[in-house]
């Protein structure tokens, strides 16, 4: 692997961590969901780097196209309720928060340092790895019953969401 792609991947990972931290740092929930969208798109780019382009496309379609849109709908629905949160101030002390932040960053740094010694990845992938064809075969032949079970789970979730969302239960 050349150095240029390596540096590009490091920058990609750095941006991903930065945008995921942005989700919990920004004040308005709509900005948090936009940061999360950026996180999802960068994650899709990382999936392409990891030789899984179909997963990347599914990620963008399902997460950015469906789940995040529901989130934005609900955020718009509650527009004036988000200001109420500011009225109740947080009770945590700033010293403890800064201590926690420094500990968190230090442990992340320690982790990065200890991960450096892992062996490099195997470069030879089997033919057809990650394509729609082989993934579909694995999903519909090897994983047929789990697939049916997850369909049932999804049906139950849809019915449950409709039932919970009704005006009076």
């Amino acid at each position: 692997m050349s150095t240029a792609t390596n540096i590009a991947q490091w920058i990609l990972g750095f941006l991903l961590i930065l945008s995921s931290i942005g989700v919990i740092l920004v004040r308005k929930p709509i900005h948090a969901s936009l940061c999360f969208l950026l996180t999802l798109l960068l994650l899709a780019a990382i999936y392409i780097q990891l030789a899984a382009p179909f997963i990347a496309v599914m990620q963008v379609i399902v997460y950015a196209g469906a789940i995040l849109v529901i989130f934005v709908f609900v955020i718009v629905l509650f527009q004036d309720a988000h200001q109420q949160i500011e009225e109740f101030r947080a009770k945590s002390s700033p010293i403890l928060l800064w201590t926690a932040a420094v500990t968190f960053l230090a442990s992340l740094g320690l982790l990065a340092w200890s991960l450096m010694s892992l062996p490099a990845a195997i470069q030879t992938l089997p033919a057809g790895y990650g394509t729609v064809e082989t993934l579909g075969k694995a999903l519909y032949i090897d994983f047929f019953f789990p697939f049916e079970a997850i369909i049932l789970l999804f049906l139950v979730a849809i019915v449950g969401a409709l039932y919970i969302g009704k005006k009076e239960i």
Partner: protein
Amino acid sequence: MDISLSIFISLAMFAVGIIGVLMKRNALVFFLSIEMMLNAANLLFVAFSREWGNQIGLVWVFFVLVVAAAEAAVGLAIIINLFRTKQVVDVDQYNLLRG
């Protein structure tokens, strides 16, 4: 992409998700943090199936995606219903189950 870089990114995302769940008081951002933890798990699945050239991990990513979608639908329905009864989206104010 190196496996160590993938593990590090995934762990950092998961930690940020836990911090969001513990610290954010807006119920919707709370939920976004849960989705972020699911995404961190997905990244590990993809990275390790790339590492060993075995695509069973990619199949599990599909299942995690479906569970995430189902969880978002049910969870947002619960949040909408809670908002109807309490008129707030602050998770500190949700204490209906406190005895």
